[in-house]
């Protein structure tokens, strides 16, 4: 195993910049999941680390040693590409075993390793078959088997489970997680599936336009997104964004919503010191941080809002309820029994302590004034009632 340090990686294809100054460190034995929209450079990153692409600038280093000029075969990495590349004239067994002999593994050990790997990925019964007889999903499993059968320093996975059906997917996910626990693989794992990302990751990295937008443990990207992009990316339920301006007053800070001028009071010191009065911001509210009001008066740091539910989307034991705030649609995640039909009026407590503020121009998250982060949780801010100035 090795640790991987990527620094300032640049790569363009003609006019298109695939990587624009990417920095990433993966610790030894760390399972690092990379997510990002299409075209953000995920595949190019993997190929560059594997040695299949020459980079224009920047370095890739294994255990401190720069490997930019090393051929793929000398880098000792394992790569599972997006579309499974199996040799049509070799059996599944031979496909998985491919390359082992070139590295000097004995025949007996090859057989043992291949059978083991085949069992892990669930293709043991297919060992004698040829790829043209396999489904896409099975091909992908064979490709994964081919990767894990080696003692590679680094494992690179490019959306390896994308072609599997849901059931198989979850089984494979569990198998990979188990494998990682046993072997402690240093891995970079690219996926579009956020559930998968949260599931498997020791650390998550979000790419955007060839650069790292944010990285950290999964909960960090979820709870403390560094920018609007990150916030909008994660969560099966999208974060609600409301445009507004900063309104500082003696009674406390608030965000004046752009549409309708409703004032949303903020917990003390929620705004950074340098946020100017009147500057444009985006207020980010997660649907999970809203609940139907139960107590007589709303808890500290909560905004109680009388909402008229427009749309109800059931998701099992919960529902997604859409209502309007300042004229903009907002989605809250409520219990199924909280609301029965559209048109119903419900009191909703919105936890503003978990809300995120973003600079409307740069998209960057506005962090609270330092001393406030702790006090915000315990401060007994007076409950705030909302008067919708629009009516």
């Amino acid at each position, binding site marked *: 195993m090795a640790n991987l340090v990527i620094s300032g990686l640049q790569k363009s294809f003609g006019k298109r910049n695939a990587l624009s100054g990417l920095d990433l460190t993966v610790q030894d034995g760390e399972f690092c999941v990379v997510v990002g929209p299409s075209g953000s450079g995920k595949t190019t990153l993997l190929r560059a680390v*594997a*040695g*299949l692409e020459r980079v224009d600038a920047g370095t890739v280093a294994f255990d401190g040693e720069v490997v930019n000029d090393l*051929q*793929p*075969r000398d880098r*000792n*990495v*394992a*790569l599972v*590409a997006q*579309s499974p*590349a199996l*040799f*049509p*004239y070799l059996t599944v067994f031979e496909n998985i075993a*491919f*390359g082992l002999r*070139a*590295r000097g593994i004995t025949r007996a050990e090859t057989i043992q390793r291949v059978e083991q790997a085949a069992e892990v990925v669930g293709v043991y019964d297919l060992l004698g078959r040829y790829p043209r007889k396999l489904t896409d999903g099975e091909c992908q499993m064979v490709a994964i088997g*081919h990767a894990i059968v*080696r003692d590679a320093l680094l494992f690179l996975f490019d959306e390896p489970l994308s072609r599997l059906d849901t059931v198989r997917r979850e089984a494979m996910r569990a198998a990979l997680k188990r494998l990682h626990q046993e072997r402690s693989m240093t891995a970079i794992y690219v996926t579009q599936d956020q559930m998968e990302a949260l599931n498997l990751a020791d650390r998550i990295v979000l790419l955007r336009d060839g650069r790292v937008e944010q990285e950290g443990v999964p909960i960090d990207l979820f709870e403390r997104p560094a920018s609007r992009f990150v916030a909008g990316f994660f969560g099966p339920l999208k974060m609600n964004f409301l445009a507004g301006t900063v309104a500082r007053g003696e009674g406390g800070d608030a965000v004046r919503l752009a549409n309708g001028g409703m004032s949303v009071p903020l917990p003390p010191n929620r705004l950074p010191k340098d946020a100017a009065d009147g500057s444009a911001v985006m207020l980010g509210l997660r649907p999970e941080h809203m609940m139907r009001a139960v107590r007589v008066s709303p808890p500290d740091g909560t905004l109680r809002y009388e909402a008229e539910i427009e749309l109800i989307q059931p998701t099992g034991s919960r529902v997604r309820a859409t209502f309007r705030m300042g004229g903009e649609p907002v989605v809250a995640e409520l219990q199924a029994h909280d609301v029965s039909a559209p048109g119903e009026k419900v009191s909703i407590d919105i936890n503003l302590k978990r809300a995120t503020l973003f600079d409307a121009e740069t998209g960057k998250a506005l962090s609270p004034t330092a001393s406030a982060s702790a006090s915000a949780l315990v401060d007994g801010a007076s409950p705030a009632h909302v008067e919708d100035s629009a009516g």
Partner: protein
Amino acid sequence: MVWLAARYALALAALVVFLFPLYWLLVTALKTPDEIFTYPPVWWPRSPQIGNFIALFGGSDVRAIVNSLAVALLSTVLAVGMGTAAAYAIARPGLGARLFAGWAAAARMAPPVMIAFPFFLIFAGIGWVGTMAVLILVLTAFNLPYVLWMMRGYFRDVPVALEETALVAGLTREQVFAKVVWPMARGGLLATAAFTFVLAWNELVFALVLTQGAATTLPAQLARYGEQPELWGRIAALGVAGALPIPIALGLMQRRLARSLSLGIVRG
């Protein structure tokens, strides 16, 4: 069902039409001279004679056959060897490769006479005319573009992803060629070699212009017989000999026939 029967009937009719001349050639070679020169024509000889075929061995014909074999084999081996190497080098895009290959293929389209013309004059100047070596060189050069064009296509058909998988798995470039590219491209190589052999074997003009006498090939020998009806039996036998490699070549090309004929544009 009826339509299927009709199709078979039509297919058989087409077979008769298109194979009859070849049949006639074979039959003529097996006839005695009186059977050849009678009217109405004899459709099948009373007792087939192989005398004409034996007569081939007597004269200059057998030498022509052997020469053809040598010329075709050698020029094919050379053309396939050089052409395949170059094709692998320019297989992936870049280098204006496609334009180069296209120009190469076009060179093959020119009339052989027009090419033989200057070659003859040049070789005559050097005093090199009339040998098989010259013919082998010219045929190699003439057929090489075809090999280049076709093999480039076959190499390009090998998915890049497979080569990359092999590289990452730890194989050297040479091993990648041997274990990945070659297994997938060798069928195409066989078909290309077979077709190139046929091209060289059938070639007339260069042979007529550049060789005479002892060095001549089968097609040239056949053409030089000219109007000698009394020798038709033997001429037909020579013709049959010239047609013999064709079924073998067809067998080697198998399903790649359309691709070989159409310069790779039509995939069988």
